[in-house]
Every structure is written in C-alpha cells, then in structure tokens.
C-alpha cells in the first residue's frame, strides 16, 4: 500500500496524534509522490484536516516522523524549516486571507517578505497569478470582505501559489462553491499542476474532484490509511465505507 518510493515529496511514518483521550491519527503512514495530485478522503471528523495540519506543523504529534522534500521536519534547523516553508503553499478551508489587506497586498505579502524585487515586478506577478486562478486584475484593490466565497478561494489559491511552490496543500478547495465553480476549480488545479509541475495534496469531500482532478486517492479511516490507489482501485475495494462512498446514490449520479 505504501511503498518506499524514492521520489516521495512527503513521507509520513507512524504518525500518532491525540487530543485529550481521543486518538485521531494512530500510526498513520502516507507517501505523496512528486508531480501527482493526491486526493485525500474520509468520513467527516476522521482527521483529514488534522493530518494536513500535522504535516505543516500546526498540530503537535505524539510520535512519528514527517519528511517533506527529504527534510525531517523535527530535526530541521530553523533555517531549513523556513526553506521548506518557502517551497510549499497552503490553501486553508476558509481562505484565511488577511482581512485588513487588499487582494493585491495579500498575494504580494509572501513575495515581498522573501524576495527583494521591484514594486513593478510585484505588481506584474500579482496580475499573472490572478490570471492563473481566473480572476481579472480589477479585483486587486478589493478587500477580502468585498469578495464572494468562490473569489476568496481563488485569491487564497493565488496567494498559496505566489512564490511558485513545488507543493500545495488544498483543504477542501471546492467546498462552498457551486458545481460549475467547483468544476472550474478542479480544472484550474489540473492546469496549474501541468504548467507549474506542482505536487498537490488535496483534502476533499467532492466526488467530482476525485474523478476529474486526482491521480491517486488515499482514504482515511480509524486513524489510518485504509486504502490508497487509483479511482478504479477504490471502486473495486470491498471496504464497507468505500463501497458506500463510491457506489452510493451520489457516486452513481457523478458517474452517470
């Protein structure tokens, strides 16, 4: 299930995370390969977001080992860690845009902090990133509170991509979008993955996303990865939750 592949960009080994007495992740193993879009599914409350937040270091773990770009994040020095952080981008579930900065300032923020480049290049890159996520340059001077839900997700994605990361974490990118908007977003992630050579770690509930955007799917249950593989593998699986998920009423509707 989890092979020791040399091109794994994220390598998670025996991760245990516990909140109080509830064990959320229990000896979990996972590899994400370079250049793939990994869809991460599981029942609500199974700990999908917890795993994402553990990998990026927002949730402390009880035991286990996490390597990103081959760097062990626990053993890394502050400088090494910053180096890793500069190479990943994160799209939070609610966007997490800075509410007192405009769209322009939100996207330019990481670039301005890490690179000493001219304001002109900052502006041009900002327009390019907005274009990549399908937004017009006119939204640049709006504040996050003046944007619609879908636009917030897009701007947040543009900010996650601002420094041209090699790895992006997307936490439920299509939740709260209309089906057409969600479809566009999946298409967008696919296109960006092709053009920028991204590796994408996508937590999702959206069956459409799994079918159209993902190369590989990992399923979380009881604090472990219960299955990982292509969409065909998932459909062939006999696991009761997977059977219900991929053969339920909604799944049949998606497959047509």
């Amino acid at each position, binding site marked *: 299930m989890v092979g020791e592949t040399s091109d794994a960009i994220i390598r998670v080994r025996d991760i245990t995370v516990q909140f109080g007495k509830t064990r959320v992740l229990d000896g979990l193993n996972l590899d994400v390969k*370079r250049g793939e879009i990994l869809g991460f599914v599981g029942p609500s409350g199974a700990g999908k977001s917890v795993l994402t937040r553990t990998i990026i270091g927002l949730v402390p773990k009880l035991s286990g080992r996490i390597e990103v*770009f*081959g*760097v062990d994040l626990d053993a890394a020095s502050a*400088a*090494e860690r*910053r*180096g*890793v952080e*500069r*190479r990943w981008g994160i799209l939070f579930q609610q966007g997490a845009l*800075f*509410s*007192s900065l405009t769209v*322009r300032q939100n996207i330019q923020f990481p*670039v301005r902090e*890490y*690179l*000493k*480049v*001219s304001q*002109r*290049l900052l*502006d*041009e*890159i900002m*327009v*390019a*990133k907005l*274009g*990549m996520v399908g937004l017009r*340059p006119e939204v*640049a*001077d709006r*504040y*996050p*509170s*003046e944007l619609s839900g879908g636009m917030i997700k897009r701007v947040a994605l543009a900010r996650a*991509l601002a*420094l*041209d990361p090699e790895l992006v974490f997307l936490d439920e990118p299509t939740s709260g979008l209309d089906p057409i908007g969600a479809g566009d977003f999946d298409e967008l992630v696919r*296109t960006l993955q*092709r*053009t*920028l*050579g991204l590796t994408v770690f996508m937590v999702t509930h959206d069956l459409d996303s799994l079918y159209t955007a993902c190369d590989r799917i990992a399923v979380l249950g009881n604090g472990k990865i219960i299955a990982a593989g292509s969409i065909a593998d998932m459909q062939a699986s006999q696991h009761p939750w997977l059977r219900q998920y991929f053969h339920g009423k909604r799944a049949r509707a998606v497959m047509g």
Partner: protein
Amino acid sequence: MRNPSGLRGYVGQGVGILSGEPTLERMARDNALALCAAGPWTARFAPVLERMVADAEKLSGTGPNIFIDVSRVSKLDTFGAWLIERLRRSLTRGGVEARIAGLSANYSSLVDEVRRVKAEPIIETDRVTITGMLEQVGRSVAGIGGTLIGLVDMLGAVLAATGHVVIRPRGFRLTSTIHHMEQVCWRAVPIVVLITFLIGCIISQQGIFHFRRFGADIFVVDMLGVLVLREIGVLLVAIMVAGRSGSAYTAELGSMKMREEIDALRTMGFDPIEVLILPRMLALVLALPILAFLGAMAALYGGGLVAWLYGGVEPEAFLLRLRDAISIDHFVVGLIKAPVMAAVIGIVACVEGLAVQGSAESLGQHTTSSVVKGIFFVIVMDGVFAIFFASIGM
C-alpha cells in the same frame, strides 16, 4: 539573508540547478543577436533576473534582429517565464516581433499563460493633497453628528426592546443577563477593589502630607469622604468598567457581526437588540452601582488605614470626623450617577460593536474607539451631573 542551504539538491530533478546562478548572455548568430538564457530562472533568483532583464531591455531597437534563446534554461517558473515575456515585449516594441527559441514542451504552457497577462501597471490612487486633507477634516466633523445620532438611535432601540420585554416578560433573557452580571460585576470585584483601595491610600497620604503644614491633618477625612463618595469612586470605577467591559462588549458583538451571526439571528426572527444587547445593558446598569459602592468603601478603608498608620489619626477619630464631614447626599449623588454612566458605556460599546466591518483591523479600531468614546462620555456626563447637583443644592 535567507539561506536554504542543504535544500539546494532537492530544488529540481535536473542537474542544471547545480550549475548555480542563472545567466543571460548576448551572442551574435547569423545576422541576428541571440540572448541566451541559461540556468534556473526561478523565484529564488528573481532579484538577479530582474536586473539582467532590465539591462537587456536597453538593447531594444539597436540591432536588426533579436531573439531569445531559452534552450539552456534548466528550470522555469512564473517569475522566470514572466521576465522572459517582459523582455520579449520590450524588444518587440521596435516593430519586429522578438521570437522565443528553444522552448521545451514542458514549459510552453507556462509561457502561454504569462503571455496573456496584461501589463498595464495598476496605479494606486492614494495621493495626499490639501483638498484631500480638508475633506478628511470635514468628514470627521460630520462624523461627530453621525456618532450622536447613532447613540440616540441605540438608546431608543434599547428602550423599545425594554418596553417589549415589560409587556411580554417571557422574552426576557435571564440566563444571559446573569451570565453577563458574572462577567462584568463579580469578576471585576477584585481588580476594582484593589485599584480603588490604592487610590484611597494615595489621596490620604498626599492630603496628610500637605495639610500637615497648616496643622490641619484631620481635614484629610473631609477631603477623602467628599472626593471618594461624590466623584472619584464612581468616576474611577466607570472608567475601569469602560476599559474592561465596554471593550469586551464591542469585541464580542463585532466578531459576531463579522461572522454574520447577527444576521443569522435576525433571519430567525429574533431581535438582536433584545437577545444580545438588552441583557448586556441590564447587567452593566446593575453592575456599576454595586462596583461603585464597593470601590468607594475600599477607597475609604485604604484612606483610613493610611491616615492611621502615616498620619496618626486613630480609627475612631476618623469615623467620628467622617460622620460629621459627609451627609447622605454625597453618597446618593455618587450612586445616582452610576447607572447613567453604565448606560452610556453600554450604548457606546454596542453601537461600536455593530459598526464593525469585515476586517480584523476594523474590529481593533472600533474596540479602541469604544473605550475612548466611553471614557469621554463618562467624563462629560460627570460634568453635567456636577452642574445639575450644584444648581439643586445637593
């Protein structure tokens, strides 16, 4: 500066990355000038790349034919692709379109993507002018009127909600009121008592120190009694409550407004004034007199203690003198002011809370202005009361 050393080897699969810095060389090649880009053209090297591209842009219009050779670029991202595109555009301006040669298939979609970027720089129109400054002053002055109207508006809404609750007592939220009483009254007691105690000590010590020169030590009791019961007790406590509970009210209501919780209440058929603001106002109006009373007692106790230990005024002499010096009027004057000040603080805090817009910055601004305006209006009210009580001879 930032040094991602040790990570270098992981940056790309290609070997080209290890060759180090990106370059842009000029080479003459059969009647044309080739600009050969090589190495990693990525965000990390953006400052260097920008300088190289700016230099190369000066070639625009000098030679007959210029093209950009990117075949030796080992890695390309949006920054690199855009800078190449920017170079291409400025070289094109001469009339003949500059070509990009040797583009690998991997990067062609990225280059196509940046080709669509419209490069008109967006200018932020944020200039400081004299008229602009005057306009700002005018708006601020007009804003004062708006503030007053807002306060009266909220006062009316709160009174209407009170009337509603009186007619239909089941709509009254007792649990919520008790909860807020605990927050603004019970939990405030230690800090209020401590601060007023210390202030009482200080007034007493200063009074004795200066009165002693005239041999009038004992008059410190008169000063302490009148000052604490009439003015300092209630004023100080009101200022503390404005800072402690007014700010909390604004922050609570403001973040509820930001998350559309108040809209949700309204759509469910509840009046936010009745559900959220009335219990808070009532808690505050009940709490401030209690706190003011406790504060006054603590200040008198502190003052008496210092008068005894520092000034040698025996406690019994202190109490006798206090009984002569103050009448019940002083005490009543102090306590009448308390609920009115509480209402002012509460109304200011709620108006500011509901005025919060979407951003965290706005929440901070309104919380600050809640405390500042609350304290300002408390002092104004105190002045109005002083005139009123003086004219009715209390």
